[in-house]
């Protein structure tokens, strides 16, 4: 439904006129650009122009259908899944993840939580395609993630730090961010602690500048060059690949530590969901 409206009209203007309505992702980004002077945020005028027609919006629509459908061996929808704010409550859930879930005793991000609910609630096996296939706009996982994340568009990142495990993992994530290893001595900090630096033509986001970092961590995002919606996990894998590291297992505490640190670094800045990247 949303996609049709977006395609029919310059909806950004419409939304801006409607008091109280959430701004469109491109408006959230535009505001960040207006308030700053960031070479990372402004690196692609072209991308900004095509954001109202972001292909990720179609993926989100399909995600909404999947979310509400009774599925899996147990034939139930995901409306019974608790993403941290109560069963079925999606608004603002994503900007508070990763977070600690008492029912599993673990810190989980959106992907891990979806896996949990699809296997326990809906009864899928962990190697059934809807759970196992994690990448690409055609996967259930990306459709669902994009839809759910979008319900936090424009809201400030606010990962929970109430539980001691959340705090401990965030702090360990910070250590890991600066930890050099591998044949090229890279750490995340090598490429993400200065503003305006480039790897070849790509302008790098700076973890110390929360207005840049909010865009950096706004996933799912359409990767224009890849013609696919991508997740945080996919982005992390890409950087680990360039670092000559092995990959991190999705949903592991190791991954959660990095994600908690990186989300905390954007605290207070509005999420751009779904985003569109080079």
């Amino acid at each position, binding site marked *: 439904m949303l996609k049709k409206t977006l395609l029919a009209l310059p909806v950004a203007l419409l939304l801006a006129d409607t008091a109280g309505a959430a701004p469109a992702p491109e408006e959230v980004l535009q505001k960040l650009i207006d308030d700053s002077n960031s070479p990372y945020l402004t690196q692609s005028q072209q991308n900004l122009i095509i954001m109202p027609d972001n292909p990720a919006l179609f993926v989100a629509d399909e995600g909404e259908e999947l979310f509400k459908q009774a599925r899996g061996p147990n034939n139930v929808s995901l409306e019974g899944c608790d993403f941290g704010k109560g069963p079925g409550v999606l608004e603002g859930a994503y900007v508070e993840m990763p977070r600690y879930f008492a029912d599993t005793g673990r810190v989980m991000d959106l992907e891990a939580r979806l896996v949990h609910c699809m296997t326990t609630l809906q009864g899928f096996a962990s190697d059934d395609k809807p759970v196992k296939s994690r990448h690409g706009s055609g996967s259930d996982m990306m459709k669902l993630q994009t839809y759910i994340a979008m319900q936090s568009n424009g809201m400030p990142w606010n990962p929970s730090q109430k539980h001691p495990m959340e705090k401990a993992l965030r702090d360990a994530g910070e250590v890991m961010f*600066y930890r050099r290893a591998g044949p090229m001595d890279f750490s995340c900090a090598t490429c993400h602690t200065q503003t305006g630096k480039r790897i070849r033509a790509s302008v790098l986001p700076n973890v110390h500048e929360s207005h840049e970092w909010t865009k950096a961590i706004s996933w799912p995002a359409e990767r224009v060059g890849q013609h696919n919606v991508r997740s945080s996990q996919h982005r992390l894998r890409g950087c680990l690949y360039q670092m000559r590291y092995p*990959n991190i297992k999705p949903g592991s505490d190791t991954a959660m530590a990095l994600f908690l640190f990186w989300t905390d*670094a954007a605290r207070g800045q509005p999420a751009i969901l779904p985003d569109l990247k080079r």
Partner: protein
Amino acid sequence: MFKKTTNTPVIAAATALLLVTAGCTATGTGKSGSANAEAEALAEQLVFAADGFYQDQPTQEGTTGRVRLTQDETQKICSAVARNGKRIDAQTAEKVRSLALASIKYPEGGIKLGDWKKGRELAWSGFGFRTAHNPDKHETREPGATCYNCHQLATDRTGGSIGPSLTGFGKQRGTGEEVLKYAYDMIYNPHASFPCTNMPRFGANGLLTEQQIADVMAYLLDPESLVNK
């Protein structure tokens, strides 16, 4: 307080750590800055946890992911320096510099320039040593030197800006003994000149062969090289 989990040793370890430290960790959120010893210990556990990184990932050099993740002394020191966020102190710098100097091996016949055209392709190539989901096959293609990722070199190709521009490097510095040694050392182990630099140790870490170093040096210094046109 914590639920028992069966197949998650890290959580168990983290929990143990937390029970010890819960009373003394700060409760504030956001940029708390300097990480404490508990955070460092937990980070090490997480890096080597069986369910974190793929520890058994095969590497091109015949080792494993675990070995790739294991830090040497320079990496340990420089990680702490980076996290600290302040300029490296003189004593630490001297330590890193001496480790670097001890690592550098020189070619038997002395430092010479190779083929700048080969060096140019090496400098451009980002191939090599990547593993994860799509390991680089060194049998089918020679690993590159990745210089353009961080440096502008000849201006017909776009380079990065993590390192300074090297356009006209040879034209500016010439090809005297000292310049040859400086460039060789920079490529072999740049910590000899810039302790805790972000530049990789291409010689000391076995990323480039002696011949490849000679070719890349030619790209930087040969008067015929496009870098110096």
